[in-house]
């Protein structure tokens, strides 16, 4: 269940309260997010839509602990991340967040296997256990035969699938997707959304996604609109229910 009225019962996986984010550019103060409230339960798939500059990516960065709010709080699985130090926030990200970026953000000099293995290097898993996890993750995204390939040897769709495998291989609390289909053609975009959808349906992952693409957003169980820093409405999408 997703709520934006700030009246959640406290069992939500992600709990945002009175979130404000302002930037100062020269003498101008830009109010990107204003008094935002949000409750997302575990296993939900939420899409944030809205025009450019509406604050979608800023919200995602705040939820992922990549940025700090001007005021307000974010609590994920009981941890109030807005109170964590920079070092603690980094460790928290390693344990709880899987990022999927628009431009894949794979490390070009590492193979698909090594890219997917990166988050596991921050765990206590042995080398053999890491290998097993990476192979499983790449099998889930259908790239078992591309493990030794470098990003430049993969198509855009394949790169994004590697990025998805990297995002969930360490079994994070939730996945944050920033325009995951924004750089792909329709066919590849559909394939990527199918994989993300499968992660929610079959593996119980919680996904928060920013997208301009209505067809991608259709896959989400909930679609929230963000306009001028305010969450305007919550709608239930058809495909994801």
């Amino acid at each position, binding site marked *: 269940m997703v709520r934006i009225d700030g009246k959640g019962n406290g069992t939500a996986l992600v709990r945002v309260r009175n979130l404000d984010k302002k930037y100062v550019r020269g003498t101008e103060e830009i109010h990107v997010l204003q008094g935002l409230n949000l409750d997302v339960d575990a296993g939900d798939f939420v899409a944030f839509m809205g025009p450019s500059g509406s604050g979608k990516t800023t919200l995602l*960065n705040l939820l992922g602990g990549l940025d700090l709010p001007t005021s307000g709080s974010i609590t994920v699985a009981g941890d109030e991340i807005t109170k964590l130090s920079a*070092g603690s926030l980094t460790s928290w990200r390693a344990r709880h967040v899987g990022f999927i970026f628009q431009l894949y953000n794979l*490390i070009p000099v590492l193979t698909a296997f090594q890219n997917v293995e990166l*988050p596991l290097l921050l765990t206590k898993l042995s080398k053999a256990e890491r290998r097993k996890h990476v192979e499983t993750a790449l099998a889930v995204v259908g790239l078992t035969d591309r493990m030794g390939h470098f990003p430049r040897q993969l198509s855009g769709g394949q790169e994004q699938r590697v990025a998805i495998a990297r995002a969930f291989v360490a079994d994070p609390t939730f996945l944050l997707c920033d325009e995951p289909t924004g750089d792909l053609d329709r066919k590849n975009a559909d394939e990527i959304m199918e994989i993300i959808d499968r992660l929610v349906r079959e593996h119980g992952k919680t996904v928060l996604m920013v997208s301009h693409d209505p067809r991608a957003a259709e896959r989400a169980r909930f679609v929230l609109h963000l306009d001028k820093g305010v969450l305007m409405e919550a709608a239930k999408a058809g495909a994801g229910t």
Partner: protein
Amino acid sequence: MAIPVVYNVRSVVQRWSSAIVAVLGVAGTVGVFVAMLALAQGFQATLIASGSPGNAIVRRAGADSEMVSAIALEEMRTIEDAAGVARDARGPLASGEVVVIAAFPLARTDTEANVQVRGVSPRVLDVRSNVRITAGRFFQPGLAELILGSNAIKSYEGFVLGGTVRFGGGTWKVVGVFDAGGSAFDSEVWCDANVLNEIYKRPTNIFQSVTVRLESPSALARFKDALTSDPRLSVQVDRETDYYRAQSRTLTDLIRVLGFLIALVMGVGAVFAALNTMYSAVAERSREIATMRALGFGSGAVVSSFIVESLFIALIGGVLGCLAVLPMNGFTTGTINWQTFSHLAFAFRITPGLLLRGLGFALLMGLVGGVPPAVRAVRRPVAVALRGL
């Protein structure tokens, strides 16, 4: 856990054109650094090799070198009879010696260079066991005959076995060649001390130093005590190796200081090259760095990673610099020995220790050139860097 090293290695390989400036800068600096130290080491080793730990050299008290020393014949007899001096059936193993400087044309440049001519006792080969005749024979005592060091015969015009040489107002016959194991004696010319004194019209009962073979290296203290406590003598005694080490100090220190200065100036240039390479690496890879940090790699891991990369580049440069100067090992050159004002041939001496120092210097340059860019890599806000702004 650290970012895998393979990331840095492959990044360097991928950006080789950018890294090559830093690699060459470090290689050149390390090459010069090692070469200068090898020069100093070679000079010092050549002089130290001239001495034997089982020998002692006696000079007049206060004389820094043989050149300014004088020991009378009766003093020499006292020294020969002192405790600790080795003896055989023919008597004590001691060599009273005199040195003069004579100018001869260098074969390579045809310019004149000073050669140290050493007048020695007929027992010198028993005293200096590292010296052996390799061609011809030893000089006949009382005759104007010369034996030439193995470097001397190669270095000077007119030094031919069986030939004659004029200097000091006399004509000398070259009767032999000796090898002194790569020591400073190899650059010298030896003859009978008494004949040398006569030809140079010096008093025949005066020597400049006396070198004795000790009963054992540990007999030095006994020998020294015997001489210094004898009221008839006013001499100073040193182990031969210590004497030659002290003789080499002025020039080796000078070469080392010059070497360090040159390496320092070049090192500053190499550090700037490394800084430039690493700053551009950080700039080009800001999105990769941000991605790693988003994944949960901490600031320390990122800083370490870029320092490792800088060290890797420096290490390649260091290895190349060492390899470039390695062929110089054993290459013979010459200089003036400032203590004797004579020409001394010696070889560059590149030891494993010197190569390790070269590599250490390379890594130091890598560290200095790597830290500021590494720190910059983690200063940029992750969210901003992820957008590639």
